[in-house]
């Protein structure tokens, strides 16, 4: 069989024009499919920035919360109640909200303010400048150096800003894993300062961050939180909840589905058509092989090998091209939200397998139908 597959390989790659067209078709389709889905994945990842950066195992929230950036304030007793629940190691409050910053040149900039628990500073970012304890200093804020950082006019330790008529001082510069989706710079401070500086409704706790004693306690904690009238979600569940909102509630998912389907159809059309014409061009020779004594299963094996080889090579090239372009884009635009996930790769791979299967099915039908007698008749 090895020799027969090598024969199939040579028949395929030696026809350079057709092989190039086939590869281009698959590569282009894979590139489009992965590019489109990775842009969406990148946007979803940015939408979950706070969940990722804070890193808590369990988040307690109002049942109406759809995404991490749209929190609904909870009364203080929720924090006390959660702290007293069985299986809870500790629980801390988190503030997450928006504010308007007046910069030194008099212009205004919207920012996201994250208020960390005053005692533990749970969820604090890694500092690249300054000391974390300075967050307790008067008017202390930590600025996050991400793609939005320049919007605060590139502050440094000691820079001053005005936040809702309160003086603020940058005491540290931090880095985080993921920057936000909405293009807003992020400032970290203590929970108490956050609720003091930012006008709030009656209830001020955005989330209660919970560390369970063990992962086995999570279902029990969830039950107790639910009995209280709130929801406890793991980090993964909260990210999924946020993703579901963007996929199903915003039309984003439908758009991505349509784009992916178009990419798939383009790839299938180009590759299917080219592969079919490659088979048609060689039909008489396949007939000659049949006459010589090639079994049908060997012919099927040859065609499947050709289709699989083309599909996998095109898939690799498509993934590589997509990764290269995203890398180049991120070099120029740090905010560029595209991320290739295993899920994107799996979707594209599945669709490439479908392209290869459809192309080879059509080709196999044609080749198996040819009668060697037709070769004699000319």
């Amino acid at each position: 069989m090895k020799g027969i597959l090598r024969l199939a390989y040579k028949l395929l790659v030696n026809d350079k024009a057709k092989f190039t067209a086939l590869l281009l078709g698959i590569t282009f389709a894979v590139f489009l499919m992965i590019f489109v889905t990775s842009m969406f994945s990148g946007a979803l990842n940015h939408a979950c920035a706070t969940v990722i950066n804070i890193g808590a195992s369990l988040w307690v929230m109002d049942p109406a919360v759809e995404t991490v950036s749209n929190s609904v304030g909870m009364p203080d007793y929720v924090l006390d109640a959660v702290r007293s629940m069985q299986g809870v190691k500790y629980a801390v409050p988190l503030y997450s909200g928006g504010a308007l910053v007046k910069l030194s040149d008099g212009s205004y900039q919207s920012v996201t303010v994250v208020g960390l628990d005053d005692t533990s500073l749970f969820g604090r970012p890694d500092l690249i400048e300054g000391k974390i304890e300075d967050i307790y200093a008067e008017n202390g804020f930590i600025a996050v150096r991400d793609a939005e950082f320049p919007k605060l006019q590139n502050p440094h330790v000691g820079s001053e800003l005005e936040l809702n008529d309160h003086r603020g001082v940058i005491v540290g510069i931090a880095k985080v894993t993921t920057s936000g989706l909405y293009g807003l710079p992020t400032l970290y401070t203590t929970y108490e300062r956050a609720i003091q500086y930012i006008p709030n409704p009656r209830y001020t706790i955005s989330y209660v961050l919970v560390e369970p004693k063990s992962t086995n306690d999570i279902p029990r904690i969830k039950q107790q939180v639910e009995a209280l009238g709130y929801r406890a979600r793991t980090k993964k569940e909260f990210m999924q909840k946020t993703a579901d909102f963007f996929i199903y509630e915003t039309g984003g998912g439908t758009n991505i589905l349509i784009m992916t389907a178009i990419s798939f159809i383009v790839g299938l059309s180009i590759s299917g058509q080219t592969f079919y014409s490659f088979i048609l061009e060689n039909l008489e020779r396949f007939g000659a092989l049949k006459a010589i004594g090639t079994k049908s299963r060997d012919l099927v094996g040859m065609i499947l090998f050709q289709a699989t080889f083309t599909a996998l090579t095109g898939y690799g090239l498509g993934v590589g091209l997509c990764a290269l372009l995203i890398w180049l884009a991120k070099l120029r635009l740090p905010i560029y939200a595209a991320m290739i996930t295993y899920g994107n790769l799996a979707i594209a791979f599945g669709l490439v397998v479908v392209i290869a299967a459809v192309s080879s099915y059509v080709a196999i039908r044609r080749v198996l139908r040819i009668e060697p007698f037709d070769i004699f008749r000319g």
Partner: protein
Amino acid sequence: MPNVAIQAIGLFKWFGEGEAKTMALREVNLEAQFGEMVYIVGPSGSGKTTLLSVLSGILRPNDGKVLVEGVDIWGLSSDRLADFRLGKIGFVFQDYHLFPRLSTAENVAIPLILKRKGWDEAIHEAEKYLDIVGLKSRAELPPVKLSGGEQQRVAIARAMSGQPDILILDEPTASLDGDTGSAILSFVHKNVLNKDRCILVVTHDERIYEFATRILKMEDGRLRGSQERAA
């Protein structure tokens, strides 16, 4: 090895049904021995190619039997029939049907590769057959770079590489000029035909009749006569 290579008994073959029914073979009986080079001649549409296809296990007859070395080939399963063709029959098609994207040696090696020989061994062996047909120096070239006569010789080398007991040539001179056609058939007669091999040739080119051991004439799907020749 029994001396009878091919025996056809009461072969009938028709195409279509009802008013569209066309009889291609009508009760054809023939016998070909090893060491013979049998020509099947006749006008276009007389059933020559159909007979060749039925005899070589490519086209199933509607009635009758084909015995090759005593084996009823149309009683074999499709896989066994494919194995039979690969092991016993060598084909030289009218249009050669060489693969233009493969080298000449790779084309000749195809039957060997189908017989599951290793690639390198098959190519090495193919080069020996190319040497026999005088084209060893062209082994690396694609067939499209060769003349018509050379391509015909490559097709013969490919047919020979499977070491078949029966060689089938369909209109071998149809695409060649007179001299080249004669040279090819002379070569086949001298170098390919032997006492353990039977060669069937379909042609209506009278210029190459001189190489035949026997000539069978076909007309309207029937064998009308046989002419022995001292080739």
